[in-house]
């Protein structure tokens, strides 16, 4: 299946529940989860916020919180608060390891919850635990978008917590034929851990037809994989008057922050160009980083 086709399928055939949940998020799920709801909900949330310390010492209490997480009919803010209580306990409870298996099992049981916010939170938690089941669910969704529980950009982002090489082919395909711009960026972020992908980032960085945010991320990725190569490209971009301000500012930031001092002192062409940028008609950001460069590397 080509990725172009996959991408279209991803937007057309996502589960109805996922679509409903997406709409809820777009219309302000942040506010909803941050404390909206009835007075009864607020009281429940308040009660939850005080019980993280001893949650694992009381089997009944633990079960009631896990049940809240699993109860698809319960208000979303209450379920989110129950998740927060368990996560807070994972930081502070001395014996959290004893209730961890029950917590993870409860999370796995709701990965296909009707609420996108729950699916996203739960798959995020499991991904940070390097949970194999969650990783497989995310990969399956990328390979077969009809099965996807999360948008591709979120799935790719979560897979980046524990990179296995099986994610690389699908990430490469998404870079070639992205279902949306965000998915391309997340696929690039994931591939930035792959040394073999350095030429891909170099190619994108050189391509002036690519959007600036894509080229900026390529610069970051290349900086990690091949710092010397990035410094060379960054210098060329700063000297190139046809490049956009944002990418020039990013490139000059990379040089100012990480370049070797003697090289910059000796580079009279770059010094001259940056001095022009400092006083030229470019953006305020470009002028700001030009001043920073000259303060650091002036002869």
């Amino acid at each position, binding site marked *: 299946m080509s990725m172009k086709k996959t991408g279209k399928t991803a937007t057309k055939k996502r589960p109805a529940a996922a679509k409903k949940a997406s709409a809820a998020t777009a219309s302000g799920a942040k506010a909803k989860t941050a404390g909206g709801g009835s007075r009864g909900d607020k009281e429940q949330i308040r009660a939850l916020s005080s019980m993280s310390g001893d949650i694992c010492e009381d089997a009944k209490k633990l079960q009631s919180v896990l049940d809240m997480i699993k109860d698809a009919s319960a208000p979303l803010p209450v379920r989110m608060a129950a998740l927060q209580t368990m*996560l807070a306990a*994972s930081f502070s409870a*001395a014996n959290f390891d004893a209730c961890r298996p029950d917590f993870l099992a409860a999370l796995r049981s709701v990965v296909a919850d009707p609420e996108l916010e729950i699916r996203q939170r739960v798959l*995020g938690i499991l991904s940070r635990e390097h949970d194999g089941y969650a990783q497989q669910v995310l990969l399956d969704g990328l390979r077969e978008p009809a099965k996807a529980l999360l948008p591709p950009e979120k799935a790719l982002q979560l897979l980046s*917590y524990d990179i296995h090489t099986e994610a690389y082919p699908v990430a490469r395909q998404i870079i070639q034929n992205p279902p949306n711009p965000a998915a391309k960026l997340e696929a690039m972020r994931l591939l930035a851990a792959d040394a073999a992908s350095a030429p891909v980032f170099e190619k994108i960085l050189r391509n002036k037809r690519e959007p600036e945010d894509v080229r900026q991320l390529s610069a*970051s990725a290349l900086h*990690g994989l091949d710092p010397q190569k990035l410094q060379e490209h960054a210098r060329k971009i700063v000297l190139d008057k046809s490049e956009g301000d944002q990418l020039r500012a990013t490139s000059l*930031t990379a040089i100012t922050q990480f370049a070797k001092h003697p090289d910059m002192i000796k580079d009279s062409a770059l010094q001259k160009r940056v001095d022009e940028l400092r006083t030229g008609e470019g953006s305020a*950001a470009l002028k700001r980083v030009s001043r920073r460069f000259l303060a650091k590397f002036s002869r």
Partner: protein
Amino acid sequence: MAIEVSINGSAAPGARYVTWAPSPCSARLQAGAGATSPITVTLRNKPSASGGTVVFYSKATAAPANTLSLTLTVGTPVSFFVAGEFGKASVSDGDVALQILNGTTVLSETPLMVRIRKNANTLTPGERDRFVAAFAQLNNKGAGRFVDFRNIHTQAGKPEAHGAPGFLPWHRAFMLDLERELQAIDPSVALPYWRFDQKAPALFTLDFLGSSNSNGTVQFSPTNPLQFWATDGTPGIIRRPLFNVASEPAQNVLTEAQTLALGNKFTLFRGMEGNPHGFAHTSFGGSISQIPTAAKDPLFFLLHANVDRLWAKWQKKFGRFNTTLAAAFDSNAATGGNRIGHNLSDTMWPWNGVTGTPRPPTAPGGPMADSPSARAPGLKPKVQDLFDYQGAVAATSWLGFDYDDIPFA
């Protein structure tokens, strides 16, 4: 006439950083042309329109004064003490100068800094930019010294740092270690704190710790070097706020007043590990919301600076700097009844380098970073070394940091 001034026991510029606590100093009239002895001199701040201000003490327990008279004889150091005037911290390196005058003649001028941990939401653009530049340098695109900090705070290290009385001392050491590494890059940097019980619109911006997009990927301005942040081989930061970062505090966290009201005994106060600490972490989706990944996000360190500030404020409120007071720590600790690493006399992992059960299998990062200005807590700190951070009980315990809203004990 030449006068050598020592600050924090050293004439080196690297030691010229003071806090609200009196720092030991000395002035010595050097032999040479024009040196007449004895002479009476006056110490004062160089008048300055902005920046920090220092005060002087004839001895550590004396009352602070804006000026101090000393009598100097050739070759003999005369001791005095200098501290930042509470509420008047520096905003840049060397923005305070200690002048020594004979009459109206300035004999010497020594630049120094009142270096204080501040509310991140109130930093000047210069303070903010220096902080993010130093942090980005420490990370160095994922290849820098920050790797150790990321690898210390993991599931394997959890028992050393969480769920037991040593939570607060351990994290104080962790913050201090990181801050000293930042100061090795730029000595003017102090670790700012995220006051999570208040809105912090200036913190979650493109120019500071970044602004999260709808997917939870943090965006930066093109001039912010944190755009090159990387951990575990992957560039970027994942942080999805579950509250409105521009207008709300973190989700469901206790306020500062509620936290300080948890109780006057450490055994009660340490309940703050759950709320507000745990709830501040979990007010986000993304790396910061779980122990194994929390330290991947630079926000972790600003969150914990605030946790430490709350402990410091509690210590100040109830007088809990001295570990001989039972209420200053967990009562089991004096007899070694807590898990290893959580008793007052235990050394702390990873700085002690001890590995293998019951400690974690590795000890990333080596000993605690030292400081040109502060001697404590030493390379392999014990739990008890992290309490008297201002040197109020013993001047030698001074750790070299202070908070903008907590005066000297």
